[in-house]
């Protein structure tokens, strides 16, 4: 393919608008149906609804933030795999305003969710010892700070990317350098926000429990979600121009390899925590696993192990599978479902929920699907709003030319 200004403009202009619109209306339908069930759930279940809500929020917000992280890694390292996926990540990051709005109900239902916020919680000496960190004003301030930080990063990465499309000069220079200058330090900031976010929003559900690797597990999980989601969307876009013209087997192969690496990393982080907590067998740590090995959670633990590690690991060993978007998408779908189960597994068995009987409920899935439908609707709109490939990025041509061998 000879690449010139004209080709770039054509690539920028080509957009499967109708197909994306169809996907968006389907998502919207899913969201509306899901929301109806959410309403029923809220009416029937009352307080436990909020736990299901947190699960769904944590999963979909993870996709937004995970996409932001992968986007920054791409800006630092370059490569064709990022060029084809970049606009998907950018569209996913632009859902952040929705997430910020979706967080508000969590804040309002905070005393239902977080035992340490309830009146009288500080009579527990362990909680009392943590009030310097675990207090409502600081919790609120941190949440605002997370969204502000992510919002700033996302705003600039998207703004600069749009400027690339609009401005004719395709030369490298300060305009491109700024992506890198921002991404390096902001990856450090991102890791810190994710660590504290995971403590605030999930770990503190059980204020007695702590694990130092928790932030890294969250990070690995978000990265895995984002990559699986990317591959799914790419496999859909691959059928239409412009993606059908630029997406080669090499780019999908690289993305699948990266997803494979994240499958292994995620398993590595999880097994590290398991071995250490199991060996130590300390009363403040081991309940995490005891809760997850009781009742319905024992088989779910096995399902998480099988679907998030064993099966994808074995499948992704195949080279031909990793190079075919229409085949690897099934593994990506499996992983995304496994991630949703994993997030449920992380959150739902926490003690101190006003639940009777099983701690798993149908509302968990209803909210996951309802919120997901809304998130996806927003995502598809974002995706359709801009060119699907950053064809005027000065490295676009080189990055894709590399796919030749």
């Amino acid at each position, binding site marked *: 393919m000879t690449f010139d200004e004209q080709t770039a403009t054509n690539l920028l202009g080509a957009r499967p608008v109708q197909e994306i619109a169809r996907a968006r209306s389907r998502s919207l339908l899913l969201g509306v149906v899901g929301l109806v069930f959410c309403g029923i759930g809220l009416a029937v279940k009352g307080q436990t609804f909020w736990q299901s809500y947190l699960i769904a929020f944590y999963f979909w917000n993870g996709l937004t933030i995970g996409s932001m992280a992968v986007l920054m890694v791409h800006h630092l390292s370059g490569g064709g795999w990022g060029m084809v996926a970049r606009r998907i990540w950018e569209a996913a990051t632009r859902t952040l305003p929705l997430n910020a709005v979706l967080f508000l109900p969590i804040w309002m239902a905070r005393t239902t969710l977080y035992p340490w916020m309830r009146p009288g919680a500080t009579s527990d000496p362990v909680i009392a010892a943590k009030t310097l960190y675990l207090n409502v004003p600081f919790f609120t301030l941190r949440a605002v700070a997370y969204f502000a930080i992510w919002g700033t990063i996302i705003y600039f990465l998207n703004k600069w990317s749009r400027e690339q499309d609009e401005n004719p000069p395709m030369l490298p220079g300060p305009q491109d350098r700024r992506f890198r200058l921002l991404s390096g330090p902001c990856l450090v900031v991102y890791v810190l926000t994710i660590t504290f976010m995971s403590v605030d929003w999930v770990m503190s559900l059980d204020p007695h429990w702590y694990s130092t690797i928790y932030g890294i597990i969250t990070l690995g999980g978000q990265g895995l979600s984002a990559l699986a989601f990317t591959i799914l969307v790419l496999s859909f876009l691959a059928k239409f121009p412009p993606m059908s013209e630029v997406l080669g087997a090499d780019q999908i192969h690289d993305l699948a390899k990266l997803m494979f690496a994240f499958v292994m990393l995620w398993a*590595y982080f999880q097994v590290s925590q398991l071995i250490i907590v199991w060996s130590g067998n300390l009363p*403040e740590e081991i309940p995490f696993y005891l809760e997850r090995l009781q009742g319905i959670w024992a088989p779910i633990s096995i399902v998480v192990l099988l679907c998030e590690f064993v099966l994808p690991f074995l499948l992704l060993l195949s080279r031909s599978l990793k190079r075919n978007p229409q085949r690897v998408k099934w593994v990506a779908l499996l992983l995304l479902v496994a991630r949703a189960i994993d997030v449920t597994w992380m959150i739902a068995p926490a003690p101190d929920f006003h639940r009777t009987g099983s701690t798993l409920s149908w509302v968990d899935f209803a909210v996951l699907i309802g919120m997901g439908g809304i998130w996806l609707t927003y995502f598809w709109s974002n995706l359709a709003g801009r060119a699907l490939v950053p064809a005027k990025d000065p490295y676009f041509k080189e990055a894709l030319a590399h796919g030749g061998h």
Partner: protein
Amino acid sequence: MEGSQYPKGDFREPLPLIGPGHSFRSITDKLTSVVLTKHTPKAWFATVAVGFLLFNGFLIAVTYLLFKGIGIWGTNIPVGWAFPIINFVWWIGIGHAGTLISAILLLFKQDWRTSINRFAEAMTLFAVMCAAIFPVIHTGRPWLAAYWLFPYPNAMTIWPNFRSPLIWDVFAVSTYGLVSALFWYIGLVPDMATFRDTAKHPLLKKFYGVLSLGWRGSARHWARYEHAYLLLAGLSTPLVLSVHTVVSFDFAVGIVPGWHATIFPPYFVAGAIYDGFAMVLTLAIPLRKMYHLEDFITMRHIENMAKVMLATGLVCIYGYACEAFFGWYSGNEYERFLVANRTYFGPYAWSYWVLILCNFLVPQMMWSKRMRRNVWALFTAAMFVNVGMWLERFVIIVTSLHRDFLPSSWEMYRPTIWDFSTFFGTVGLFVTLMFVFVRVLPMISVFEMRTLAPDARVKSSEGGAH
């Protein structure tokens, strides 16, 4: 491929991997002449003399140890694990850069690994040797090490505890040593044939001839070689993670505050790579100067290593931050005491802050491209990291142990001259082995460097396969 893939003057354009004007001939001549010459640089003699002297100190220390037992060391209850394990972890960590460079960067198709992989692998081997010394001698009775370390049916029917990471260590480290040695040697074979063909002296010809295992450079040899090398790279890759993960379990599975942290596995692995790259730079910068290898170990290599150091160093710092934060967040009396003792009021608090200086503050200069391309600055940073990573293990091990749960068991740890002479002795051994290696074997892979020469590029793009 004409020129660079990047536009002219691009900031992303990498520096060249090999100096200008090199051909197959000049690369082979330059790299073989380092070994097949009668002129050894004076600096080589000076370095080996120092290394060998230190190693003799080690021999004396160990001989005395065998006579007297470990009472000659500062190790005592409650600090029952001290220098031997600190040194063991430090050395094992150093080895990791070699494996990362040779295996993971090969799988990632990072061609900048080529000129540094050989001596980084040698470094791995020698570092593992130095590390292995400590588990063997740490009881003062190495003749009993066999049944402490290896599970074999013995007359006393005593077995090691299979749930103990210490026994996992035996397998992890011995596998690591074995695979690293194989990887290194297989990589050497084609070069040994080059040396056999280049050497003049009949004895040298014989020596390199035996080592080359009858390599004749036929297409079939190369095909098999490439296959074997790639397979070994695949096998080595998990070892980069597994060895230091198991080492971190040595501490983390116990319930000692300061040891029992779930972040330990990834944090130890990152620390190992950090330290390993620091050691590669510590060796590469002087060797490059001593043998005038600036064309082969270019600024590109140095800069990339600096970047890897910066990234892994930040992961390490993240580990320190998490340890401190979660120590406090746990709300646990002992965890909190440990954090405060380690960082603030404890008698070893100085070591923590020196560690922060060495591993955190100084290496941050590598954010600057100018610093990454300044060998003096980088050498200094690398030395700081070498010291810092040793101190990290000192901080983890000694400060966690010297304040037992019971204040009546509190005791200071003071290393003796024998602790130091054993440690510096292994440094001497390492330096000696490294420099002997540089003198008798090619420290840079000759045949792989040839693939980077412009001649090789022309052919490959004509053939259309690369």
